[in-house]
Structure formats: structure tokens, C-alpha cells
């Protein structure tokens, strides 16, 4: 065990853990965050995604000691009590079914829009392809991303 310092959602935390511990378990069990969740532990599904310095990172395979830079989790997207436009779009499109994977969907979409504010449909599909959903909410998730990127109001609208 050793003391690891983390910047999470703008706050600094010190945790006493084995440095090889995957970031996911520190976020969930030491910092009591619920956004990132365990899905596969292998970096295959994106359910555990957080954003580190603008990049969507799979926290389940990222040792806590390897983290350089500030971490943003789902809980850190809202600012001053106002939801992030993607979170609002998720509500407007009613994108979730069970919702377990939606952390991965939203965080992957945020990383996409931060680097490409107006992606084509093909770019959305490609960027989101690693974010799995077993309720198969993909159609509405894509509509929600389009809604933010283009102000599109229609769920089924295709560019």
C-alpha cells in the first residue's frame, strides 16, 4: 500500500492503496463514486469509462499509479447544478433502458464531441463502437449525440 494522490472532478484526494489497483475500484470503493461501473475488467465494454485529460480511459485496466492528470467522472459533468448538454440530451431522448452502461455511452460521447464537435454519423458510429449496451439503446444514444452536436430535435434524424 502507498499513498496515491488523485485529482477527481476538480478535487484532490489521497488514497492508501496498492499502486497496481485499477483506478475503477479506487473511484468506486474509496471515493464512493457510482458513475463508472464494472462491466468486464478487460477494457472491452466501456462501462467503467472516465475522462483523463480529454481522453476516454477504461478505468478497469488503468492502474491507479499510472494516472497522470485530472480525472472527470460522470458525476463531474454537471457544472453549477446544470447538467452537461449530453446528460440533458440523454433525458430528452430517454436514451436509457436499464442504464447500467450509460456511463460508458455518455463519457465516450463526451470525449468524441470534445475533439470533434460536429461528427458525421459514420464518425459517431466509429467512435462509439466500443461502448457496449445489452439493452441495445444504440439508436437513441446516437440520436442524443446528434441532438447535442447539431441541435437535432428528431430522434431518428440522420445526417
Amino acid at each position, binding site marked *: 500500500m502507498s499513498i496515491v494522490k488523485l485529482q477527481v472532478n476538480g478535487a484532490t484526494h489521497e488514497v492508501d492503496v*496498492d499502486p497496481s489497483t485499477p483506478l475503477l*475500484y479506487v473511484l468506486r470503493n474509496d471515493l464512493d463514486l457510482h458513475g463508472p461501473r464494472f462491466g468486464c475488467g478487460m477494457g472491452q*465494454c466501456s462501462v467503467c469509462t472516465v475522462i483523463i485529460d480529454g481522453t476516454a480511459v477504461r478505468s478497469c485496466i488503468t492502474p491507479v499509479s499510472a494516472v497522470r492528470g485530472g480525472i472527470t467522472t*460522470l458525476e463531474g459533468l454537471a457544472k453549477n447544478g446544470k447538467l452537461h448538454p449530453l446528460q440533458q440530451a440523454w433525458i430528452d431522448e*430517454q436514451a436509457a433502458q436499464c442504464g447500467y452502461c450509460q456511463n460508458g455511452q455518455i463519457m465516450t460521447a463526451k470525449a468524441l464531441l470534445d475533439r470533434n464537435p460536429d461528427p458525421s454519423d459514420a464518425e459517431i458510429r466509429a467512435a462509439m463502437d466500443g461502448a457496449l449496451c445489452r439493452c*441495445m439503446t444504440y439508436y437513441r444514444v446516437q440520436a442524443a449525440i446528434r441532438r447535442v452536436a447539431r441541435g437535432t430535435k428528431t430522434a431518428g434524424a440522420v445526417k
Partner: protein
Amino acid sequence: MSAPLQLPKAVKDAILGFNQASRRNFLKGSGALVISLGVATLPGANVFAAEPAAGPYPDPDFLQLDTWIVIHPDNTATFFVGKTDGGQGTGTAFRQMMCDELDIAYDRTSLIMGCTDITPDQGGSGGSDAIERDGIAMRRVAAEARRVLLELGGQHLGVPVEMLTVANATIALKSDASKQVSYAGLIGGKRFNVALGGRNVDAIIVKAAVKPVNELRVVGQSLKRYDIPGKVDGSLKWAVDMKLPGMVHARNVRPPLAGATLQRIDESSVAAVPGFIRVVSRGNYVAVICAREEQAIRAARQLKVEWKPPATAPFPASSGLFDYMRTATPSSVGEAQVVGDPAGALAAAARVIEAEYEVPFQGHSAIGPAHALADPSNGQMTIYSNDMKAYGLRNGVARFLDMPREKVRVVYMDGPQVYGRTAADDAGFEAAFLARELGRPVRMQWMRDEETAWDTKGPPYVFKLRGGLDAQGKVVALEYDACAADHNHLGYNEPDTVLIAQLMGRRPERPARGSAEAPSTLYAIANRRTTTRIVGMPLTWETPLRTGNLRDPNGPQVTFAFESFIDELAAAAKADPVQFRLDMLAVAGEDGVFRKARSLAVVRAAAKAYGWDTRQSPKPRTPAARGNLLSGRGIAYTYRSNTIAAVIAEVEVNRDTGRVWVKRLVCAHDCGLAINPEGLRHTVECGMLHGLSRALREEVQFDTEKVTSVDWASYPSLRHSDTPEAIDIVLVNGDPNPNRPDLAPYGAGETSHKPLIAAVANAIFDATGVRIRRPPFRSERVLAAIKAANT
């Protein structure tokens, strides 16, 4: 504007404080001041005061109105129902139905589900019948509460009930709206103390009548789901998030080979793992407990266990599954259903078509592996779980641990999808067993390989169909033979069928019967023969190839074979696939819920929404279609219980790579009264896409020792890039119709899922002229079929 108990908070309260003790006292109302109509004040001022819930936890009395509805002093209400919501928005729909009957605004209410000691036992979820069956009880109790409140209002205002009107939880004189009293003013924080009648929870009898459909105002609105905000801002506490003081983490160690026997555990192999607490084993069940989660994961991987392989192979390899099924001795054979003279009609038919179909094992493979937290405090057992059948889990764990039911409770919380019987059961039993062994709270979660390999699976099928056409292309005979490998079905939380019980050596008296189903269809075919049989895998118990209800347990398999074959008959008759089906429906008999008329309407609505042009399949190759992309369309129709669906898939098949992309999906759907049309559309949409995943990607693979599908690479699922670019859903008769005051709501969770594989197969045939009789339609299979047809 918002109620003080927005649901995420309410669920949290239900778990952390709300509060069994005060709720229990509330329901008992002991020593309370009794006023007119039996209304009693609350012993404590606050129903939701935080007190520890020490137990025991007797069943809430479903025959007491107070069990279902509480009116708070601020004129809001909380509803308590014994259901769970797997993400289809049923919780929102329940609230809408109850708000309408109670005459209270939706945003002045909250709802608590599936906590066995505070919500009446309505069985949890399953069978897509929450709205159809359980919704009736909810409507009745809410209507009864309104009736009682009106009587109280009449006494309060000194007028007969007939002179009163009620809106927004406030009762007023019809003649003078200034003379009014709120529900809270009559009963806020007090008990109704009104007994209900009825033999069971589905047959509750009340004095009040529920409203006719044309008086419903909240029902029929597309209100937004209350649970989504907490799911997108990270504030909702899920079952997977539950933590308790003193809690430790457990992981299972499964036999590496199916049917292996535990020989020896070398505990010293993990003694040095930081945080290691204990290895627990019983029979072939092994788990490791550590202080922290990552420590438990490491210890479970590191633990040295010697296993003795089984003497004989537990199952054939997945590549030989269907040959095995065809030749295996059936464990049970269904009674043949014969109508008319199928043999004679086939012998006299102008043309006889024959085809065989196969469907592999397909898994639940929840996105979040199974989990539960169990707390053995105070000599009780509390299990925090997303199990869709919270009440069954409670009963099963009580029997498994030989504890009185009253000492066991299950607190239902949100979790990953539950489209049937999943390993959520298993994790609940495992956590409870380990918590008792350790005497402290234990959190269990499965790993991905364990979830994919060991979770319950939908049974595989082989089918053989024969059909006879007369000279005019009309179907005169049809023989349907189905064989399913389904012999070890995970039941409903029985203490001898969950995996931990099997591994410990417990066995039920005999395996589950399993089932091979006949198609649900209304097609009028004069001469028919239907035969079914079940075969088992060589290894019945302690096997990863165990079956469990997976979204319409047999429907996707059966409908794939049957609706593919109908399409083959249509092609042989050179008939348009839609018209061919309509012709057979048109001469069918009608039933009490008008399924014939509704089936005709649904098939026509799907064709119209799609823009179906009448022609036979396959699509004629035009010179323009010489590129590598072939397009086509296919229809499949079915019903499930009283709900009808027809799906049309439009595909694009790359003839060079074999890749199938379903570009467009159209579904016409009739489930009667739509409680929340947008929520319904989303459920229909995701049901189709789940079916599309089974059509294009999903197959459990195994060798003769173990399941080799262990992650998302070896068990591929539908992805963003597979998503259709357009999905159109037509709700046929789906909205409240003022002309039909008795229109019933039927289930919608599974029907649109059911015809998907068939619709895609039929579209691939239309595009390519190649009939593929075995899903999934992965690129390599499609390419091989195209090549075989062209050589």
C-alpha cells in the same frame, strides 16, 4: 413543484432508512387515535424517519390499503408495489396508472418497488405481464383510496359525496370550488385502515370502480421516466453500489472444466495476498473473501485448486451440438398435436417443401456481471439485489439457509438488464451463504468470463418443417417438429437449482421438464401436425450450459424457424410474403381478444409504414444491382399472449464480405392500451435491437470441456456500428381510444423481440436468394452460403 420524495432519493431511503421499522409501526398503527372511517394517525410524525431496520420482516398485508398508498402531510403520495423495473419504464407506467385512479398529479407522487418487507408481494417481474396483470391491482387500490377520501371529504365538508368533485388531490364542492379540502387535510400522515378483499394479490376486490379508459388523463401521456436523471448524472445508488460498514468482498472460483470435482485447495497460495480473509468451500463451490475488491479478484485468480476432470465429456462441442441433439434420446416427448389429415394432405399436395433450422445457445450476458450484497446483522439476512423476482429470492434464500422467511428480506435496487432468469439469483444466494459463514456483510460480484460462460442461456433448437402447397400455391398441410436442449432449467429461485446449490451437491428430485414450444400463429392451415421433444446435455448439473428464461424463452427460436418456413412456402408459391400471410390470416377464426382482426391490422400497418411493394422474393436482380451491396426486405409476424407484432427488416448484404447490415426496421405493434406511448416505443425498439443482436452476432461456443465464450470478443454482441439508420414503430390501436372504454393494456416487453431473427433471415433471402437456416448471420456464415449457392 416536485414531491419531496423524488424516486432516486426514495429508493435510497427505502434502502438506507425508510424505513422498515417506522413503516411497520405505521402499518400496525398501534395505539393510534382512530377517527371516522377507521382513519388512524401515525404513531410517529414522519413515515420516513430514519431508524435501523432490525427485523424480523413479516410480509406486508396486501389486503390493507395502507400497504399500497401513503398520503403525506404535504399532499403528496407514495405508492408501494411488488414489482421491479428492468429498464422498460414500468415504474413510471405504474405511477401513471395509480395517479389517474387517485386523481393526483404525477409529480406529486413517488413509487417504491420490490422491497420484500415494505411492498406487497406481486411476484417481482417476468412474462411481460406487469402492466397487463399487476397493473389492475394497482389501479383498484388507488381507486379505492380515492373513494375513501371522497367519503371523508363529504364528512369534512358536510355534504353527500355526489356533490363533490376531485382534482389534483383536492376535494371541492361542485357548486362552490372555494369549499375544498386536500387529501392531506383529510388523511396526511395518517392511516386509511381500510381492508381490501380478494383471494390473492391479482384478484383484489375493492368497493370502488376503476375509471373507464376515456376518463384516464395521465395514462396515455408520454411522461419522461423518473429514473433516467439519476442514471445520467451518477446520483442513483444501484445494487452494485451498496456498501455497509464491515463489508468484505467475495469472488467465486469456478471449476475450470465442466463437471470437475474439487480435490484440494492450497490456501497458502493466497495467504500472502494483502487483505486476504478466507477461502470458503463446500462441495465444488469455492469462493475467496478479501477486505478489498481488487484483492478478492487477485486472490481468486491466484488460488491454487486441484480439480479432477469428469470421467466423460459434459457436452459435445458447439460445432457438433445439432448433430448431438438430432440423435440424442429425448428426455421427454410432447404429445403430437394433429389437426385434419396432414399425411394425406401432404401426399396429395402439388408441391412439398421441407427445411431444417437450427438455433444455438444464446446467453443473457448482462453488461454488468451478477452481484449482490448480503447483510447477516441481528440474526436476520438482508440481500440487496437487482433480482427481478425479489420475492422469489427471499423465499429461496430462506429455504437454502434454513432460516424462517420472516428473517430474510430482499431490497430490490436498479441493476443491469434482466430479460429473464439470470445469475442475479445465483449471486444473491452466494452472498447470503458467505455472509452467514463470515458473520459480516459480504458483497459478491461475478467476473466477465464467469458471467458469459456460466450465466443462464436460452435453449438451442433444431427444427424440421414440411409444408404442402396445392396447385394454386395455397398451404394445405404443415408439419412442425421441434427439439430443444433444455433439461436443467434455472427455475424461480429454488434452493436446489441455483448454481451454488448444484455445486454443493444439492439436487432436485428430477431435472426441470424444459420445453420445446410450438409456434404462436393464427394462420389457417387445414391439416397440421406439431411434435416436440426435449433432449439434455450429458451433464445435467453443475454445468455452464444451463438454461433459463431469456426474453420470450422460446419465441425467437420458434418464430425464426416457423416464419422462415412460411417465407419459403411463399417463395415456392411465387407469392408476395405479406399477401401470403394476409391470405392465411384472413380465413382464420376470431377469438375473444380479436387477435385475428388485430393481426391483419398489424401486418397491413407494417407493410404500409415500410412502403412494401407487392412482389415475390427473392428480389429480381436488376443491372443496377451489380455492385457488391445487395438489398432486400423481409417480414415476420407473431403474437405473444395478447400482443401482436409484425417486423419488417431491410438489409444490405455485402456479397464480397458477407456482412449483413440491417439498415431499417419497421414494427407494427398492438398491445392494446398504451400507458406511456414513448416508453412503449423505446421498449419495442430495444426489443427489436436485442433480437437483431441474436440474429447477427450471438452464439455461445464451447469445446467438450468448457464454454469458450468468455468475453465480448468470444461472445460478440450488437454494436453501435450495427445500428439501423432508421427505425419506425407504428402503435396500432396503441393510444387510448375514447370509443373503447374497456381497452386493456397488454404486455410489450418481449413481442417485438420475437420475430426479429426471422425477419432478418427473410430479408437476406430477398436480397441474395440464399436461405440461411441458422443464426447468427455473421459475415463468414453468410459469405459461405452465398459462395455455396453460386458454385
